[in-house]
C-alpha cells in the first residue's frame, strides 16, 4: 500500500534532510480552511482547556457545590501536604506506575518479540492477548472480582490443587488488594503495549540481526545491542503513554475496590473522585486533580517533544 510505504520511507529519512519539493503548503489560507480548523479547535478549547483552567482556579477555593466558592489561596495545597490519605494515595500511585507500567511494558515487549516473526497461529495468539483491551475497565473489574471473591475462582482452584493455605480475601486484605487490582489492570494493558512494540519492531532491520547472529551473538545480546537501540522511538512513546495512563487510572480501581480497604488501594484519581463527589469537597478535589496534572505534565511534554521531532 502506497501510504504505508510512504510512511516507512518518511520515517527512514535521515533527520535534517531537505524536504523534497512539492510538499510545500499553500501560503494563501482560504476562509473555509479557517473554518475547518477553528470548529474543532474551538470545541476542544471550550470543553477541554477552559474546564482545565477552571479546575486550577477551583483548586484555590473551598466549595461544596452549592452557592459561591470561597477563595482560600493555597490552603488546599498546604492541607494536601499533611493529609495522610493523600500521602498514601501518592505512594500507591508510585507503586502503580512502577508495577503496572513496568509489568505491562516488560510483558508486552516480551510478547511482541515472541510474536513478531510470522508463524502458524500467531494471529490467534495476538488476538487473545489484545482482546482484553476492547473490554471496558468496568467490565474488566467485574470479571476479576469473580476471580478474587472468597468463594471465587482463584481461591477454589488453589484449594483444588492443594494450595488451600494460600487462600485470601484478595480484595479485602490491604496487603494484597492493590496488587490484585494491578494484575487485573496489567492483564488488560499488555495487549496494547504489545501492539505498540510490534509496530516498532517492524521498523527494525532484520538484516542487522541476522548478521549479528552469524557473528555469534546470543539472542540476548542481539536483543539488547541491535534491536533495543532501534526501538528508542517507540520506547519513549511507550514510556510516556504508560506513565500518563498510570496517573489517570480510575475506572478499574473504582470498580473493584472504591479505594478501600481503608485507603489501601486509594490512588490520586480515586481520592480526587471521592473528595469531589462523595464528600463534596470540590476545591480540595480540584487541588488533587491539579497535582495529578502537574505530575503528568513532564511526561506529556516528553511525548509532545518526541512527537514534534518526528513531525519536522
Amino acid at each position: 500500500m502506497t501510504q504505508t510505504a510512504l510512511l516507512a520511507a518518511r520515517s527512514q529519512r535521515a533527520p535534517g534532510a531537505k524536504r523534497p519539493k512539492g510538499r510545500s503548503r499553500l501560503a494563501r489560507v482560504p476562509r473555509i480552511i479557517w473554518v475547518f480548523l477553528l470548529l474543532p479547535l474551538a470545541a476542544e478549547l471550550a470543553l477541554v482547556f477552559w474546564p482545565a483552567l477552571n479546575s486550577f482556579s477551583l483548586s484555590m477555593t473551598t466549595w461544596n457545590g452549592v452557592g459561591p466558592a470561597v477563595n482560600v489561596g493555597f490552603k488546599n495545597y498546604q492541607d494536601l501536604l499533611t493529609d495522610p490519605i493523600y500521602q498514601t494515595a501518592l505512594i500507591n500511585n508510585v507503586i502503580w506506575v512502577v508495577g503496572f507500567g513496568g509489568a505491562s511494558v516488560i510483558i508486552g515487549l516480551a510478547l511482541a518479540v515472541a510474536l513478531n516473526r510470522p508463524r502458524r497461529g500467531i494471529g490467534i495468539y495476538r488476538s487473545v492477548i489484545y482482546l482484553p483491551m476492547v473490554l471496558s475497565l468496568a467490565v474488566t473489574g467485574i470479571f476479576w472480582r469473580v476471580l478474587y471473591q472468597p468463594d471465587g475462582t482463584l481461591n477454589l482452584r488453589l484449594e483444588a490443587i492443594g494450595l488451600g493455605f494460600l487462600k485470601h480475601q484478595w480484595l479485602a486484605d490491604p496487603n494484597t488488594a492493590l496488587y490484585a487490582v494491578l494484575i487485573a489492570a496489567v492483564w488488560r494493558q499488555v495487549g496494547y503495549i504489545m501492539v505498540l512494540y510490534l509496530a516498532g519492531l517492524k521498523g527494525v532491520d532484520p538484516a542487522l540481526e541476522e548478521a549479528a547472529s552469524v557473528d555469534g551473538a546470543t539472542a540476548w545480546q542481539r536483543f539488547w545491542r541491535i534491536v533495543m537501540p532501534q526501538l528508542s522511538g517507540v520506547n519513549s512513546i511507550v514510556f510516556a503513554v504508560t506513565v500518563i495512563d498510570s496517573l489517570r487510572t480510575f475506572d478499574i480501581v473504582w470498580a473493584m475496590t472504591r479505594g478501600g480497604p481503608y485507603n489501601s488501594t486509594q490512588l490520586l484519581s480515586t481520592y480526587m473522585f471521592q473528595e469531589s463527589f462523595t464528600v463534596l469537597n470540590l476545591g480540595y478535589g480540584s487541588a488533587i486533580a491539579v497535582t495529578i496534572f502537574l505530575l503528568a505534565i513532564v511526561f506529556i511534554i516528553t511525548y509532545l517533544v518526541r512527537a514534534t521531532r518526528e513531525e519536522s
Partner: protein
Amino acid sequence: MNDRITLSRRGFLAGTTVIGGAALLSACVGTGGAAGGGGASGALTLQSSLSDPAPKAALASVVKSYKGKVTLNTVAIEQFRAQLSTYLTSSAPPDVLTWYAGSVANDYASKDLLLDVSDLWKSGGACANFPPALKALSTAASGKQIFVPTNYYWWGIFHKKSAFAEWGITQPKTWDEFLAVCDKLKSKGISPLTMGTGSTPWVASGWFDYLDLRVNGATFHRELLAGKHSFDSTEVRNVMKHYAEILPFIDPNAPSYSWQEAVTPLVQNKSAMYLIGAFVTQSVPTEQVDDIDFFSVPTIDSSIPSAEEAPTDGYFASAKTGNKKGTLDLLAYLAAPKTQQDFIATSKSSNLPTSPDVNTSGFSPLVQKGVKLLAETKEITQFFNRDSSDALQTTADTALTKFMAQPGDVSSILKDWQTAAEKVWKA
C-alpha cells in the same frame, strides 16, 4: 498583501475568542447555581436511590398508580449521593428525590435548595397527624419543614427462629449472655455474627453506634457525632473495648461482602446473627421471611437508659421545581396512608409506616415487634451518617474497618480518627 490579510484574520480570531470567552465566563464554575427553574408543567421527575430490586419495583408500582404523570429514575445509591448536589443546583432539577432526614437535608435546606413543604404539615395536610418527633426531624433550622418521611425502620440483631431452636439457643438479655451465646455457636462451628463491610463499610458503624448507646448513652453519642467529644476519649475507648470482644465472632469473610451478600450465610445456617436494619428482609428468600426474628442489642450497663436506632427515609423536593403544585401533590400522595401501606407490602421490607393511619395490625408479627420496640425505648437516634454527615461517615468507615482487621492498633486508630474528624468539622 498576505500579511495584512493574515493580520486581519488574527484580529478576527482574537475578537471571537474574547466574545466566546465572555460567554463561557458566565458559565464559570463557582459563581453559584443558575437561578430559577424552567421546567414546563408536565411529567414530574422522581429521582430515586432505591436500587435494590424489591423497593425499586414497589416504588415503580406506586408511581404507576398515581393519577398524574411521573418519570421514575433510579440511580445506584453511590452515584446518587455523588450527584445529589448537582441535581439540586441544576437549572432543571428533578422535582422529588428520595433521601433521608438528617444533616444532609438540613445542609441543603440552609442553602435554600429544598422546597418548603410546611403546607403538608399544617392541619389538613398529608403529614398533619404524624408524630411530633417526625415533624421535628423534618424541620430545618429555619423552622420550615423540608422533608416528608414515609417509612422508618429499626435496627436489631436478626436471626432465624428455627436455627436458634436447632442449636439450643435462646435470645440473650445481657451482654455477658450474648458473649456466651457467641462462644457456644463458635464451638459448634457456626460463625456467630455475619457482617458485610466490603462495599458497604457503613455496616461496621452499626455496632459502633449501638455499643456507644449502650455504654455511654444517647446524649453522649449525639454530642460525639456533633464534634463535642473526641474520638480519642476514654468513653470511646471503652466502646472499642467491647467491640474487640465481638471481633473473634465475626465471619472472617465479612470484609469481602456487601450487606446484601452477608445475608446469605445467615439464610444458609452457616451464620447465626446479624446486627442490621429491618430492611434485611428484602434480601431474605420469601419462604424464609416468617422464620426471621430479632432481639435488641443486649444491655451492657443497666444504668444507661434504653436507646435504639430508627433511621427514617422519605422524600424531599427541589426548591427550583417548575411545578410546585404538582410536586406538593405528589408528595402528599407518597405520604398518604394507603400509598405507604402498598409500598411496604410490595417492597417486602419490614419497614414501618410513618403515618399513624396505616393499620399495622395486619403487618407481620416481626413488624409488630419492631413497632413495640421503638414505642417502648427511651431514646431514638438515626444512624451515624444521618446524625452527623457523609464526610464523617467516611472517617468512621476507614477507622472501623481498620480496627476490625487490626484491633491491636486501637490507640493509633482512634487518634487518626479524631484527626480526620476534626478536618471534617472544621470544613
